[in-house]
């Protein structure tokens, strides 16, 4: 609820929220001009964890950039792997075997659930509820164990390769994934919805807070759950299908309210949809190799390439410019939260500090991905 107040612009003070602050989940700094507890002006200041990944891409070969992708969005690292693999495969014309595509989808969707679980946990932590964090981590741990079995690492995966994946999945992984889905479906209604979603304190806290209109989403280029919470039915997996997503039957949850609760509900429903995709993929999993034929040294044709994938936070675009060399000539990463955060200033104006932080939590920020 944005309380209608007449903000006084003459008696304001500046509050530096961050770069070290519990609610910014990393090193984001927001310069707030405040009138009492009301925000007159909010101005995010970025760059505290900027590492110039785009220059690193230009300096190395195509394959050498793969580990970097996971270091940007460390929560949905496999989607960043996927985005980079897709744009290079597009540019170099590499075919991917079907089994590898299925494995990519399964692992990326598992990772998406893990990312949403962590968002949920961190969001509740922003709202002062500590216990849900540990319930969500309990479930997330299971996903990480599963992914560790196939990828070898727990957080910053470097699993996808141009033309396939690094390692095949085994029966134990398949069984473990099915067990996990059963477990999460069993826990979801009680530990997630009864304890938190239906809780009156939470509802009062995030319902009607932080309205984002569909028009604002368009003007600021917001995508992902933020756009879908504002009534925009847009999911790259559906609208611009890549990989083997067209073969699965899943819905894109859309809520029209545009408040923090809508974004919350979008993510909660997305977890269920991801589970549906994983189940179908496990049922249909074809045999065959997991690595296709890919040249050792990639030299894509000169030209402009763009490719987008849907990460847990929205549309991730890779703008690749090649000049026929074995390094990318130019790589621009269009990271979803960079655009999502840019509307924070406009929406947070006139909000109370605590509400603005609840709104910020509902945007699901991952700072290394904004700063790249």
């Amino acid at each position, binding site marked *: 609820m944005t309380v209608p107040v007449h903000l006084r612009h003459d008696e304001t003070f500046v509050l530096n929220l961050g770069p070290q602050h519990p609610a910014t989940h990393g090193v984001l700094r927001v310069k707030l001009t405040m009138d009492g507890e009301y925000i007159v002006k909010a101005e995010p200041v970025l760059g505290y964890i900027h590492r110039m990944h785009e220059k690193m891409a230009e300096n190395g070969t195509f394959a050498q950039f793969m580990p970097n992708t996971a270091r940007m969005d460390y929560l949905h690292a496999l989607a960043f792997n996927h985005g980079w693999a897709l744009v290079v495969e597009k540019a170099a014309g590499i075919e991917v075997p079907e089994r590898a595509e299925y494995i990519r989808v399964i692992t990326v969707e598992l990772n998406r659930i893990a990312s949403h679980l962590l968002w949920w946990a961190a969001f509740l932590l922003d709202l002062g509820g500590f216990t849900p964090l540990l319930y969500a981590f309990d479930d997330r741990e299971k996903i990480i164990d599963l992914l560790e079995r196939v990828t070898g690492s727990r957080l910053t995966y470097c699993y996808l390769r141009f033309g396939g994946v690094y390692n095949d999945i085994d029966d134990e992984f398949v069984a473990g994934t099915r067990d996990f889905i059963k477990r999460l479906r069993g826990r979801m209604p009680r530990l997630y919805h009864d304890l938190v979603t239906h809780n009156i304190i939470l509802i009062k806290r995030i319902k009607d807070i932080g309205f984002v209109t569909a028009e604002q*989403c368009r003007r600021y280029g917001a995508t992902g759950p933020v756009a879908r919470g504002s009534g925009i039915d847009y999911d790259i997996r559906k609208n611009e299908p890549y990989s083997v997503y067209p073969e699965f039957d899943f819905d894109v949850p859309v809520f029209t309210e545009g408040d923090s609760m809508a974004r919350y509900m979008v993510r909660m429903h997305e977890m269920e949809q991801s589970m549906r995709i994983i189940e179908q993929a496990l049922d249909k999993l074809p045999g065959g190799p997991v690595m296709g034929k890919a040249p050792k040294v990639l030299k894509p044709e000169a030209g402009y390439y*763009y490719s987008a994938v849907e990460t847990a936070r929205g549309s991730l*675009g890779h*703008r690749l410019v090649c000049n026929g060399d074995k390094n990318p000539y130019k790589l621009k990463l269009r990271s979803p939260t*960079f655009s999502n955060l840019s509307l924070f200033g406009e929406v947070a104006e006139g909000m109370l500090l605590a509400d603005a932080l609840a709104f910020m939590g509902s945007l699901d920020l991952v700072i290394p991905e904004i700063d790249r």
Partner: protein
Amino acid sequence: MGLVEQTQAALAELFPEPALPAAPAGEGDQEAPPRQAGVVVTDAARHGSHLDVLCRPDQVVAVARVLDQDGYFLEAISGVDWLDKGQFEVIYDYNRLGDEHCRVTVRALVDRNEPAVPTISGVFPAADWHERETFDFYGIRFQDHPNLIRILLPEDADFHPLRKDYMP
């Protein structure tokens, strides 16, 4: 008429003459004939965009207005440094939210010595940060930008790291 053709037609009105200000640098390496039209349809499956628009820097805002009216949104702005041609290229990626899908790439070439492009942050607020980032990395000035300061690099940085001649 599909969305792609519709947008193509709307954009083509901005380019009455087929003559171009400069040779497209990125395609210069291929021995293709120089491009004649401002707006061309590209293979979306391979290049990831349906329309490719090559315009003069002063047309960037007009193109943005047309796309804004058609309900597009700005995905990203990126710069490219064509060092051997003495040019910077600014690439605007547009996309459309909704069922019908069309991606538009708008490119503009500017002189490397005095790089300046009018800002489109008046049309798309999203461009604000993306333009600041491009300024940060390449030193391209976006004229009339409300707040053209460093965004990702420290405010006292005196270099533009993505220029190809930048040596740390």
